[in-house]
C-alpha cells in the first residue's frame, strides 16, 4: 500500500489537510446532534393521539348572547348532528385532544398531598370513547346510569364517581391496566380530594395540550359528565371518505339551529395535529436545512482542497504516470489520501459530537446522544468525503504522462 508516501506528502501540505479534517470534525459533531433533535421532534409529531384520526372532527360554537336553555341546546345539536348521513357517533365534549385548549387536574392514588400526577381531563354525557374512536383495553365504557349533569352556573364543583383512565396513567398508578379496574383513585389531594372508581382503561389518549414530554401528554382520564357550559363543543366521527362532506353539513345544520352563537372551531383531526405541532415542524425543518447546508459546504471544501492539490501536483502525477502508474493508481492515491484525512476528522468529530452533546444536555436538558447516531454520522461523513474526492481524483488520473517531459 502507498500509505507511507501519502503521509509524507501530507506532512508537506499540512494546512489543507488540517482544514479539511477540522471541517469534517465540526460537520460530524453538528449533524449527529441536529439529526438526533430532528428525530425527537418527528417522534413527537408522529405519535398517535389515540383518536381515530381519519374519522373524527371537532365543531365548536361560542355563545354570542346569553343562552338560558343549555341542555336543550345541547340535545338539539346532538340530534341535528346524528341526523346527518354518514355520521357514526357524536359526543358533546369539554375539550378536544391535541387542540391546545383544555382542562387539567391532579390525580393521586391515595388522596394524600404531594404525589399529584398532572392529568388531562375529558368529559362527555355521551360515549367519549365511541365518538373519538378510542380503543378500550380493559374494563367497560360508561353506561347511561353513570352520567352526571353539571351546569357551571349552579354547580361549583365538577365531579363524578367513575372514571376511565388512559393506559399510561393506569400503568403509572397500578403497574398494569387490568389491575386498575375496580380500584379507587382520587382527583386532587388533601381534604378536597374526591374519590372515584376506575371502570375502564383506553389504550392511548393524548391530552389537549399534548406537550412534547410524552409522560405529561399521555396521562389523561375521562369522566361521564354532561357539562352545560356556554359553548357548544362536539366531537363527530364519520366514515373517512365522507368526513369532508359531513363537516360542511354539520356546520350548515348547527348554524341553522340558532342565530345567537358564532362558529369558532371546525377542524378535522389532521388539521388539529398540524396546528399543534407547527412549532416542532418548523424547528425540525430548520435543523434539516442546517444539516443539508453543512454537508454541501463540507463537500465543496473537500472538492476545493483536493482540486488545489491536483493542480499543484500535475507534474508529479505526470512523472508517476510516465514511470508506469496506471490511472487507477492515481485515483487510489487521492482517494486513500482523502480517506486518511476524513478518518482523522471523524476521530476528532466523535469527541466534538460528544462534547457538543454534553454542552446541550447541560444547557438545554437535551437527552444523551445514542451511539447509532454517532455511527450513522461517521458513515455519512465518510461517504461524503469519498463522493467529493472522486471528481478531482478522476481529473488527476487524466493528467497525460507527457506532462512529465514538457516543462523544466
Amino acid at each position: 500500500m502507498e500509505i507511507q508516501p501519502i503521509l509524507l506528502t501530507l506532512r508537506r501540505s499540512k494546512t489543507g489537510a488540517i482544514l479539511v479534517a477540522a471541517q469534517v470534525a465540526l460537520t460530524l459533531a453538528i449533524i449527529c446532534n441536529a439529526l438526533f433533535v430532528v428525530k425527537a421532534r418527528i417522534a413527537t409529531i408522529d405519535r398517535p393521539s389515540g383518536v381515530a384520526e381519519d374519522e373524527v372532527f371537532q365543531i365548536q360554537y361560542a355563545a354570542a348572547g346569553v343562552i338560558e336553555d343549555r341542555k336543550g341546546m345541547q340535545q338539539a345539536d346532538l340530534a341535528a348532528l346524528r341526523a346527518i348521513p354518514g355520521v357514526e357517533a357524536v359526543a358533546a365534549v369539554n375539550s378536544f385532544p391535541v387542540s391546545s385548549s383544555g382542562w387539567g387536574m391532579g390525580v393521586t392514588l391515595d388522596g394524600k398531598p404531594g404525589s399529584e400526577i398532572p392529568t388531562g381531563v375529558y368529559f362527555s354525557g355521551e360515549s367519549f370513547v365511541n365518538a373519538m374512536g378510542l380503543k378500550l383495553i380493559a374494563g367497560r365504557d360508561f353506561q347511561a346510569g353513570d352520567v352526571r349533569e353539571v351546569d357551571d352556573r349552579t354547580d361549583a364543583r365538577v365531579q363524578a364517581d367513575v372514571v376511565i383512565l388512559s393506559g399510561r396513567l393506569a400503568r403509572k398508578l397500578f403497574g398494569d391496566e387490568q389491575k386498575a379496574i375496580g380500584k379507587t383513585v382520587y382527583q386532587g389531594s388533601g381534604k378536597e380530594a374526591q374519590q372515584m372508581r376506575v371502570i375502564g382503561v383506553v389504550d392511548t389518549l393524548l391530552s389537549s395540550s399534548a406537550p412534547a414530554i410524552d409522560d405529561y401528554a399521555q396521562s389523561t382520564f375521562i369522566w361521564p359528565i354532561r357539562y352545560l357550559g356556554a359553548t357548544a363543543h362536539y366531537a363527530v366521527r364519520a366514515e373517512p371518505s365522507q368526513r369532508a362532506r359531513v363537516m360542511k353539513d354539520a356546520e350548515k345544520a348547527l348554524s341553522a339551529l340558532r342565530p345567537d352563537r358564532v362558529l369558532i372551531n371546525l377542524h378535522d383531526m389532521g388539521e388539529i395535529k398540524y396546528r399543534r405541532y407547527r412549532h416542532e415542524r418548523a424547528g425540525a425543518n430548520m435543523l434539516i436545512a442546517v444539516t443539508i447546508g453543512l454537508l454541501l459546504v463540507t463537500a465543496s471544501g473537500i472538492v476545493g482542497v483536493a482540486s488545489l492539490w491536483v493542480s499543484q501536483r500535475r507534474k508529479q502525477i505526470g512523472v508517476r504516470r510516465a514511470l508506469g502508474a496506471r490511472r487507477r493508481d492515481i485515483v487510489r492515491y487521492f482517494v486513500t489520501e482523502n480517506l486518511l484525512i476524513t478518518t482523522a476528522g471523524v476521530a476528532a468529530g466523535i469527541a466534538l459530537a460528544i462534547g457538543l452533546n454534553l454542552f446541550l444536555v447541560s444547557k438545554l436538558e437535551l437527552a444523551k446522544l445514542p451511539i447509532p447516531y454517532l455511527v450513522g454520522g461517521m458513515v455519512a461523513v465518510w461517504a461524503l468525503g469519498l463522493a467529493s474526492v472522486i471528481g478531482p481524483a478522476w481529473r488527476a488520473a487524466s493528467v497525460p504522462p507527457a506532462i512529465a517531459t514538457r516543462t523544466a
Partner: protein
Amino acid sequence: MLAYYLALGLRHLRQSPILTGLIVVTLAVGVAASMSTLTVLRAMSGDPIPEKSDRLFTPNLDNRPDDGSSRDPRPPEMLTYRDAVALKNAKPGLRKSSVMRISPVIAPSRTDVKPFFGDGISVHADFFKMMDVPFVQGGPWSEADDARGNHVVVLRESMAEKLFGDAEPVGKTLHLDTYDATVTGVVSDAWEPVPRFYRLVSGPPPFRGVEDLFIPWSTAIANEMQPQGNVNCFTDPAPDAPPGYEGLKQSECIWVQFWVELASASDAPAYRDFLDGYVAEQRKLGRFPLPTNNKLFDVQGWLDVNKIVSKDTRLQTYLAFGFLLVCLVNCIGLLLAKFTARSGEIGVRRALGAPRRAIFKQYLVESGVVGLVGGAAGLGLTFASLWFLRKQSDEFAVLAKMDWMMLAITLVVAVVASLLAGILPTWRACQVQPALQLKSQ
C-alpha cells in the same frame, strides 16, 4: 495605497470566478443561517419597554393551602380577584392596573360585518400611561369611568378601521356582549411590545396576537366577562361558596395579572414590605396559611423566571453558529487555494521590491472585499430566510424582523469572518519565496 488595493481586490473577484463564487456563497449561507436565528433570539430576549422596564413590577403572592401539595417554591403566577382589588385600592405605587384577557362578542353597527369575537384585555385607566401606549386618536378613559364601570372602550387602529371604515371612531358606539360601549380612543397599530409581557402567563403565547380592544376592568367584572386563559385553583371552593362568577370572585383561584409602576427602581424594597404587610393582615383573616413567600418581579425578572426564550431557539442558534464556523473553515481552504494560484504574481512583486507588509495588506484587503460581497449576499439571504420564517407561523411573523442593529451586526459579522478566514491564507501568501517562484516560471 489602500484604495488601490481595494480596486485590485474588486478586480480579482472576477479572476477564478468559480472559486470566488464558492467563497461568496459559503460565506453568505453561513451568515444568513446564523443571522436569521440570531435575529429571532434577539427579538425573543429583547426588552419590551426599555425606558421603564426597571420600574414596572408584577407581584406574586403565595395563597396556596398548607396541605403539602405546594411543592413548587415559586408562588402562583397570578393574583386572586380579591388581592388584585386590594392592591389597586392601596396607596403604594405610582400607577397600577389589573390585566385580564377577555373575548367579548363585537356586534358592529356596520351591516356588512358579521358579529365576531374580539381579542382584548380589561385594564385600569393607568395601564395606558404605565405601558406608554401611543394613541392615534382620542385617549384613555378616565379614572371616573374606572370607578363607575362605564361602558367605554379603546380600540386598536386596525380594529377601528374594520368596524367604522373611514369614519371618525371616537365617540361612536359598538355593541359588546350585552351592552353598547362608546369609543374614547384609538391605539396605534405600531404598539406591539415583544414579548407581550403584560399578559405573559395566561392566554396566547407571548409572541402572538395583539389586543383589538381595551375595556375598563370594573366594566368587565360588572358584566361578568369570562377570563380568557388560565384560572388556577389550588383550593377547591368551600361547600357554602356561591356558584358562577360571584364564586370565582370570592375564591382563592388566581386569574388576574397585576402590574404596578413605581416612581423609581429603588422603591421596590418598600413595595415588598408593603406586600408582606398586606399578607400579614390577610393572614389574620384566615387566608395565606403558608409562610410569607411574596415575589416582586421587574419586567426582565418576569421574562427570565417565565423562561421566555425557548430552548429550541437557543439550540438552533448554537447550531447555526456552528454552521458559520464550518463555513469559515471552508473559506480558509478556498482562499488558500485562490491565493496559492497567484504565487507567481506575488513572487514578481516581491522581487520588484514589495515588502512582506505590503503583500499582507493587499491580500487582507482582498479577503475583506470578498467578505463584503459575501456579507451583502448573506444579508440578502438573511432577508429571504426571515421572510420565509415569517410565513411559517404567527410567532415568527412577530419575531423574524430585521432592524438596523441586526443589519449592521450582519455586515460586521460577515466582514470580520472573512478577515479571520483571510489571515492564514494571507500569511501563507507572504511566505512566498520570490526566487523559487521566478525560477519555476
